[in-house]
């Protein structure tokens, strides 16, 4: 009788292949885990710890939030543990980040009454509050129970007024300046009274803004820094304040969601290292919509043409292969084409024909959201064509023939039978195209993305260069992917940019993941319905 225990040949090598799959899955998990961990960690409010450090015989005090731990290999080859501390108070200390060697830390208490204040510039303030001074001399001390409510109320008032000033200066006065520029450029004498009136209005509004700014400085917060210095800060530059070490779990969750909301809805400050990324979200979103609006009609029409109208033969087969391959061409080539053709050729000609009075300053002859959308549309059109073609091919011949037998014309068959049945496939293609377009950065670098765009591409102003009112297709825009590149690669302060970059990366990955999973689910449902061969 044969022994039951048989060594099957090659089993150990099967484990080698299993290793391949494990590594692949582990890589994905690690990457998503790293981004998720660091990304979410950005929003979770952390404790502020005060360190008493003994260095070179001197004791010093420094307080901050622990950002990361690392182990360095010291000069003698021994590993040294270090922690990187965010100490804030950049304008006082010179830098906002410090490395502390763990062995040199003597004590690390968590002081209850240390305050963390978010500011308009120079990062956060980490200090012990002394008193809140109002115009007129009244002071409130921190141990007074009305201190915190009063501080929050005043900060809210300052924030509202800040928004008012911003709206006044950016929108109102900005609108007037733009109109003044147009009138002055047209050099017509009949506009002189209008110009005078606008100038006067502009002066009035500026005076109002100045008045509001003066009121921002009415209250001051006096603090003692952890290193012992005493400083005073006008509330004008402060955004929000809280005691990080006094937060309970519920309060921390609340602050967590508040941080996420701020991140998604605010404008960036401090060369993109603080604040939010709302313009980038909007820019990505709007550009993707424009791209989809361009890609769907053309992709669907071409697919219908290839499938239904063109004579099937070697010619059409080679066209199909060519279009398939275009999906594999590097995106930078499309960017190059976008710059050369759309920006420098089409855009320059549009400027010549319609905007020659503004030359040599280019309107459409430079990068903008319209050209970016068209470039990406060209890049993703093959995806939509392929998906639509597969969807059209999957419609059973019986349905088609039945429709023709009932006397419908070719177009009626397409319109009433084939297209409705293909809509899920078209949508799948569209979603895949959107996912690809949202993630590509290389072509955008060349055709119209900027690090910081002062205005959104849709806002309340109606500019003379707009083809559609209120939609400024010639403006440059911000994009999530480019934001990551700019922050991660070109930021002057890479330590400060780190949290923003991870948070933005997390958001972009979530966006792309959601789009792709939707596409995958739809495709699976389709496949089950029509049971086609493997794609």
């Amino acid at each position: 009788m044969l022994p039951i225990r048989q060594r099957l040949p090659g089993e150990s090598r099967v484990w080698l292949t299993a290793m391949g799959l494990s590594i692949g899955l582990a890589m994905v998990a690690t990457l998503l885990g790293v981004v998720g961990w660091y990304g979410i960690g950005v929003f979770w409010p952390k404790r502020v710890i005060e360190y008493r450090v003994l260095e070179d015989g001197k004791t010093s005090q420094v307080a901050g939030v622990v950002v990361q731990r690392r182990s360095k290999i010291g000069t003698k080859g021994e590993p040294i543990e270090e922690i990187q501390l965010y100490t804030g108070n950049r304008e006082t200390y010179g830098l906002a980040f410090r490395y502390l060697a763990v062995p040199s830390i003597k004590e690390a208490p968590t002081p209850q009454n240390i305050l963390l204040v978010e500011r308009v510039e120079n990062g956060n303030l980490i200090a012990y509050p002394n008193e809140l001074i109002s115009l007129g001399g009244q002071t409130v001390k921190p141990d007074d129970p009305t201190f915190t409510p009063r501080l929050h109320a005043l900060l809210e008032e300052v924030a509202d007024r800040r928004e008012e000033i911003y709206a006044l200066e950016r929108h109102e006065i900005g609108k007037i300046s733009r109109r003044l520029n147009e009138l002055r450029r047209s050099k017509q004498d009949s506009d002189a009274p209008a110009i005078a009136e606008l100038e006067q209005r502009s002066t009035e509004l500026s005076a109002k803004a100045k008045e509001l700014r003066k009121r921002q400085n009415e209250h001051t917060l006096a603090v003692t820094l952890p290193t012992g210095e005493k400083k005073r800060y006008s509330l004008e530059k402060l955004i929000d304040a809280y005691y990080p070490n006094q937060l309970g779990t519920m309060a921390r969750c609340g602050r967590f969601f508040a941080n996420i909301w701020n991140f998604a809805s605010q404008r960036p400050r401090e060369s993109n290292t603080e604040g939010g990324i709302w313009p980038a979200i909007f820019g990505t979103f709007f550009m993707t919509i424009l791209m989809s609006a361009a890609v769907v009609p053309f992709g669907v029409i071409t697919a219908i043409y290839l499938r239904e109208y063109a004579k099937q033969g070697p010619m059409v087969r080679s066209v199909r292969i060519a279009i398939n391959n275009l999906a594999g061409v590097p995106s930078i080539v499309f960017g190059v084409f976008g710059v050369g053709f759309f920006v420098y050729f089409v855009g320059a000609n549009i400027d010549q024909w319609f905007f020659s009075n503004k030359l040599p300053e280019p309107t459409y002859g430079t990068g903008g959201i319209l050209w970016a959308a068209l470039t990406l549309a060209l890049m993703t059109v093959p995806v939509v064509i392929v998906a639509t073609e597969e969807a059209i091919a999957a419609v059973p011949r019986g349905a088609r023939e039945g429709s023709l037998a009932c006397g419908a014309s070719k177009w009626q068959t397409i319109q009433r039978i084939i297209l409705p049945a293909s809509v899920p496939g078209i949508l799948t293609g569209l979603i895949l195209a959107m996912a690809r377009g949202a993630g590509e950065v290389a072509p955008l670098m060349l055709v119209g993305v900027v690090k910081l765009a002062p205005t959104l591409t849709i806002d309340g102003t109606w500019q003379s260069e707009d083809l559609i009112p209120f939609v400024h297709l010639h403006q440059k825009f911000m994009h999530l992917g480019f934001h990551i590149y700019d922050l991660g690669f070109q930021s002057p302060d890479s330590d400060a940019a780190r949290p923003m970059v991870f948070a933005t990366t997390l958001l972009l990955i979530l966006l792309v993941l959601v789009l792709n999973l939707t596409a995958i689910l739809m495709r699976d449902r389709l496949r089950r319905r029509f049971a086609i061969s493997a794609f």
Partner: protein
Amino acid sequence: MPTATEPPSAPAADRFQTSRATLVVDRVMTWLIKAGGIAVILAVCGIFVFILWQILPLFQGASVSRTGELALPAGSKPMALGIDEWGEIPFVVRADGSVAFIPISGSAPTTIAIDGVGAAGASAVSYRPMTQHLAIGTGDGRLALATVGYNAAFADNVRIIVPELTSGGSFDLGEAGRPLRAIAFGDGGSHKLVGAIQDGADRPRVLAAILTETKAMAGPGKIELGARIDVTERFAGVPQTVLVDERGESLLVVTTAGDVHRFRRNDDELVLQQTFRPFADLADARIASLNWLLGDVSLVATSASGANRLFSLFYQKELDARGFAQTKEFPPLPGGAHAYAPSVRSKAFVLAGEDRLSLRYGTSAAVRWEKPGAPVDLVALNGKYTRMVTLSGDTLQLYDLDDPHPQSSFGALFSKVHYEGADAPKYQWSSSGASDDFEPKLSMVPLLFGTMKATLYAMLFSVPIALLAAIYTAEFMHPRFRTIVKPTMEIMASLPSVVLGFLAAQWLAPLIDQRVPSVMCAVVLVPLFAVVFGRIWSGMPTRVRVHIRPGWEYLAFVPLLLLAVLLAWQLGPVVERLFFTVPDGNGGQLADFRRWWTATTGASYEQRNSLIVGFMIGFAVIPIIFTIADDALSNVPKALRSGSLALGASRWQTAMGVVVPTASAGIFSALMIGLGRAIGETMIVVMATGNTGVMDWNLFNGMRTLSANIAVELPEAAKDGTLYRALFLGAMLLFLMTFIINTIAEVLRQHLREKYKTV
């Protein structure tokens, strides 16, 4: 509608006719769809056509066309010819010491006399087009300096140019009364050098003088004659002509025998540095002409026997100093050159030979344009390199010159070029430099090499993992996991490369920087664990083996993977201390892989290197190879697999012996498509390498790829300039490479699908 009592009405005669509206709509939509479809297909082809159109000018030569003639007004013999930067007012310097400006528009010529020449007249004239300085040697041994200027005024958008002449002073140079036969001048700012050949009592003498300029607070400074040196005795031979470089540092004396003696200025003295014979190998070594190229670092030499060579100044080992040596050989110019004009924008120059006029380019040693014809006396190029003017007798011939990319040619872009100042030909890409006369070096080869390097390391990492994973998923994995594994791999494919690049640069690079030995241990340990565990496990009795059912191995391996990685991480420093140590200067040994690498291989080590880039591009490429290979393997007919198993083969034998060979075309096509993706990867390379154009295979330094180069340089390139078009050429190369690779892969796939149609 007929009721029950009425008889049924006759059917409508036209009930089988389609409604007109339907027909019209059908026709319109047909037309629309055909137009739209063809338009999109054309647009897609248009990309290729557009890029091609942008790069063609790089490979074109110069086109020169004659536009007219001007008669020179009567006067004494013309000795030098020049033209303003716009090409509208050429001038001649006459032997009587005056400069005549002759506008080509036909308006009246202006004549201005040069101060300091006087009745003796000009016996030698040297004109430097770059600075528009004139140096005149008079018939009685004096030097007069002048600068030609053009004042451009605009009236009603029309440009009016008024020529003027500014005097720089006149100085006694040699023996009074004897004419100067040749003159050369170089303005080095505070010190200026003049060289001249003067008729002497018995033989011509070569004189040099150093002028100093004291700067005034406002206005031009005062130029004074300083030291005067006679160098005739310091060399052998009869002097033929002299040259001085634009910095006033060197004096070159050309003798009738064909020698060139180079003197270097050392404060107020001239020291003989080098003597060389440009045409030493020819029977007739006489030099017909010797002139500077833009920048005054290279010399264009023609011999009386028709050879044309370029000599450049660079460090020579034999001299242990900088010296002139031949770098280029041009096509011959019969009879040598009678006249010469350099371009002030590039290394282009015009030579007027015995039987032709030739426009040549220094760095590429190419003839850009040539016109046979009678010899001309003088020739000049304008500052914008758009017009050329020649003088024959008393007629000025005017030419329009169209040569937007003189420095570019197939050789300049793809072969080794010996650039000025370098000691050997090499491949180099550096598109911008600090000084104005920097010559852009635009070779595609380092970029192609960089692309190959990145692709090679990416494929080296990704192909084993992807193929092993695909084989496992298609052959051994339990089918229920397909719904998890396939989407996970698709998610891996959809991650934007900017995210991968960012993580590579900011997270992976610092992590691995000091831990390369750990990575090496991991590369060894993980497969080792897999194979060893597999061997042990497959030898276990069945009641033990049921715990890991077939198809679940990959899950069971995960803890082993983690263990192996952890072990490798800890083992890394140990290995480093054992094998990768360098002496640390205090007698002991320091364990540091990075320093060990630099010390042992001589190559550099950078934090952002090919290892990181290969890993991350591999990350992007693995899911692509995996998906297509998995498809190919899954499409192999089940009958083949079942048959093999039925005959007693183990699952490994079936997989490797039957399924994989059958699907080999599909696997190959998967590799090709992955290769295409790796070639075009931009963001990861931009963010995770140093973007340095190195050309070595060193794993621990960066590279510059075609795609990253375009992304970084195109925003700054001036439209339609040479750099702009060179970047488009890079895009075209990328396009062609990926298109060809993808077409081969696609054709293979279609072929395979036809072979194994499952529906």
